[in-house]
């Protein structure tokens, strides 16, 4: 019996017979009884964090998520994933200030990912021809449906309409113009944002069931009171369109001193504009650059006069560079001092004073100081003033104070006023105190939509805010509010931001980005047509390949390879990611330091 048992054992252990078993004492005991997990005082967990790009985006766009889907060639999924947080990729892919690219961790290695171009690629690949897949079905619960009137069809109005529609609201957009899109359609020239792109986004909104009412001015065609009575919620998004006047020109009556914003609108509407041969644009914002480049395209000789230097300019540096290439002359550190008129009220001369930079002011930029007596002449025929725009409050009546330059809003973007009479009026975009960019406007629309939904459900917005805020800034996540599943089905930590100090650059290969195909300046400066092609599929895939997926697990196997205690368990790709054997993990933390992208967190035991 014993012999039989021994020979069974011998065969089990690959010996020919029990006689082959070595006469030495051989043990098959293992050390699994020694549960080294008890040594641990910190333990690793897999936790996806917020990448630096998403943290920098005011709209909280989950860039890493859709770039990953794009890299897997799941184009349609990427498109709808992108639209979860940022509804208009074709528009923002052209005009965004790309805070994400400035924050991209890859800049330490070579160059940032061209996120804006990728977003444009995704937006252009899929014009919204089908309704949103996550659109709620409103049938049968009509008593719970609330209605929303949106005044103004600019980016914040479009955004609030989109998100409110996804939340089940009945939405109507009113705009006084025949052309919908507000600043996108009228302020931004066609060469930067083609009109078809804006139009197709509105087609997408109508497909979602948003009612569009152009040519309807609130306060004139319909009084605001009618809206507040017929609709449950009203969102004001009429932007900032009233140009700030220069003190210098206040008392001059001269038809050749014009508002740059008005010129842009006239050009957008297709009206004829009479500019002189030599044009001076005063200001340094995007309106100034757009007006200057529009004038260049109309054959003018253009000088931009800005009182600070290039580094303080609010316009995007890329726009400034392209304007310079097209022949716009920039006079920095100069301010208009005097304008002399001819007898026939045409401009004879513009006298400018040189400036120098003083100490920083409350905006964080250097204050320009006039150099007394140092002046120079700029011979011009037309002056375009672009020193800022203010909101127009005429239709709001007593809801605003006469001294207000912006609408004061609460945390939930409902307007703060002494005379609201229980109306549920919200505001967003350039009317409120946020930076005047398209993406900030989109973010305000998202915030207001969520705030209205909280109000409808009777939930305190401040409580919800803490659950859906992502990163260290003010960005909110619509996916979190809707409980939509993230791309990686692992634990999400929305507060921790992965910046460049947390990336292990040793694991990344230098890989330059693809060259942008931009028409040369002498070709593009005669045309209002777009001069910059969307990325090709190959270029887009090349860019997605460069993404480092900061803070998000990519199943790269580094933790599996480096764990000294064989405690990272592979799940052979049946489910996402890895499991950790906490019986034996000693909590050394090698998995975290060798994770190229900081997708692991060490948490204290107990």
């Amino acid at each position: 019996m014993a012999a039989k048992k021994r020979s069974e054992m011998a065969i089990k252990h690959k010996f020919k017979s029990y006689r082959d078993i070595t006469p030495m004492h051989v043990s098959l005991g293992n050390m699994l009884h020694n549960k080294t997990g008890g040594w641990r005082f910190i333990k690793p967990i897999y936790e996806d964090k917020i990448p630096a790009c998403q943290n920098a985006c005011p709209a909280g766009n989950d860039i890493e998520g859709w770039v990953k889907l794009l890299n897997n060639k799941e184009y349609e999924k990427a498109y709808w994933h992108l639209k979860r947080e940022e509804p208009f990729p074709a528009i923002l892919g052209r005009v965004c200030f790309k805070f994400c690219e400035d924050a991209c961790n890859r800049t330490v290695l070579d160059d940032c990912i061209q996120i804006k171009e990728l977003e444009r690629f995704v937006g252009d690949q899929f014009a919204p021809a089908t309704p949103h897949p996550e659109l709620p079905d409103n049938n049968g619960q009509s008593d719970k449906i609330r209605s929303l009137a949106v005044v103004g069809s600019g980016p914040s109005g479009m955004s609030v309409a989109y998100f409110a529609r996804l939340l089940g609201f009945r939405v109507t957009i009113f705009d006084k113009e025949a052309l919908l899109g507000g600043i996108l359609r009228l302020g931004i020239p066609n060469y930067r944002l083609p009109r078809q792109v804006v139009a197709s986004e509105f087609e997408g909104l109508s497909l979602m069931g948003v009612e569009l009412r152009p040519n309807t001015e609130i306060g004139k065609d319909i009084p605001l009171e009618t809206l507040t009575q017929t609709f449950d919620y009203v969102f004001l998004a009429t932007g900032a369109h009233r140009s700030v006047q220069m003190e210098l020109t206040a008392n001059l009556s001269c038809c050749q001193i014009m508002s740059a914003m008005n010129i842009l609108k006239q050009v957008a509407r297709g009206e004829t504009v009479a500019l002189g041969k030599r044009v001076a644009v005063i200001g340094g914002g995007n309106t100034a650059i757009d007006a200057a480049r529009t004038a260049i395209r109309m054959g003018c000789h253009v000088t931009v006069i800005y009182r600070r230097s290039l580094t303080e300019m609010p316009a995007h540096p890329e726009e400034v560079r392209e304007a310079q290439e097209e022949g716009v002359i920039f006079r920095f550190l100069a301010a208009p001092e005097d304008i002399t008129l001819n007898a026939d009220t045409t401009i004879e001369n513009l006298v400018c004073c040189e400036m120098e930079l003083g100490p920083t002011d409350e905006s964080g930029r250097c204050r320009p100081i006039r150099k007394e007596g140092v002046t120079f002449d700029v011979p011009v025929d037309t002056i375009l003033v672009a020193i800022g725009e203010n909101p127009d409050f005429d239709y709001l009546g007593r809801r605003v104070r006469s001294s207000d330059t912006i609408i004061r809003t609460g945390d939930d973007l409902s307007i703060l006023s002494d005379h609201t009479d229980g109306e549920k009026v919200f505001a967003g975009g350039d009317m409120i105190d946020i930076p005047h960019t398209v993406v900030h406007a989109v973010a305000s629309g998202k915030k207001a939509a969520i705030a209205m939904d909280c109000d409808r459900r009777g939930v305190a917005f401040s409580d919800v805010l803490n659950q859906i805020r992502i990163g260290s800034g003010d960005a909110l996540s619509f996916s979190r509010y809707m409980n939509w599943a993230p791309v990686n089905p692992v634990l999400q930590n929305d507060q921790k931001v992965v910046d460049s100090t947390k990336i292990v650059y040793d694991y990344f290969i230098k890989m330059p980005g693809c060259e942008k195909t931009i028409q040369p300046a002498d070709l593009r400066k005669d045309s209002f047509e777009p001069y910059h092609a969307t990325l090709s599929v190959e270029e887009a895939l090349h860019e997605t390949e460069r993404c480092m997926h900061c803070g998000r697990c990519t199943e790269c196997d580094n933790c599996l390879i480096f764990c000294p205690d064989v405690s990272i368990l592979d799940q052979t790709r049946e489910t996402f990611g890895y499991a950790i054997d906490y019986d034996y993990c000693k909590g050394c933390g090698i998995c975290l330091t060798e994770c190229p992208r900081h997708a692991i967190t060490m948490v204290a035991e107990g």
Partner: protein
Amino acid sequence: MQKMIDIPRQVLVEEELMQPGMTSCQGCAAPISMKIALKALGERTVVVLPACCFAVFVGGYPYSSLKVPIIHCPFETAAVVASGAAAALDVRGEKDVVVMAWAGDGGTFDIGMQALSGAAERNENILFVCYDNEAYMNTGIQRSSATPMGAWTTTTPAGSIKEESKKDIEQIMLAHHISYMATASAAYPDDMFRKFRKARQITGMKFIHLLSACPPGWRIDPANSIQVMRMATQSNVFPIYEVNKLRFSKDNQRFEEDWEYTINVFPERKVSVKGYLKSQGRFGLITDEMIDYTQKKVDRKWNELVQKQDNTNQVIQRQAGIC
């Protein structure tokens, strides 16, 4: 884009030959090295363990955390016990079993030297691996001849830190005309995996020198052990290269021997020697002169290596009749 660690996924997911439950310190690099070595060598392997950290934490008899046979042997006998095991397996006709002696720096540089030298000279068919943590860590951090200049240990305490340089074991082994010599580091696991796979195919004496971080002895955070080892290579303090013995005949008459040097890792992100030394607490007392001296020595060794690799290429080209 990520530089993926190039170990076949098939190999990564198959059954581990190393089990958890070992009493190694947190962050010890030796189990990582063993895990990769066994993945490359497979289950037809015999491990010979002299006295070293690994012999202690793998589990004393009758326990073992490896699913391959282990022979525990006295400190100085790793190479000779391995030689005997290899000879016995040869007699039994089990040619596919590889015998790996797995010794620390004490069992290689100091106490194991005579047996190793003898086995190397006889060109025994064994794989001798030295996992070098640069001191007698097992007994509480005593200086060995592998301890680098300027390092603190309990026998080179503050006030008399080690002034001698580390023994150049790689050149000593090459002086024995062994079949294959390589350095490797767990910070570059795919390179290490490839070298063990290669060593398995080679008959004769194979020697692999592994750098192996020891968080308590090096005075580093356990989490940083792989990072520090990577810095050792990035600063050229521990260059990763391999040396094959080339045998070629001229006119089928006369045999010549030459070394084929290949540098496997050219660091992309350079780290200064000072940066590497200062990342560890054990070098907290090192003087600036010692750092300068180490930097010069490291540079010279690196340049020599590059020179040798260039010579190799020339020899190979000459043999192929290219030039």
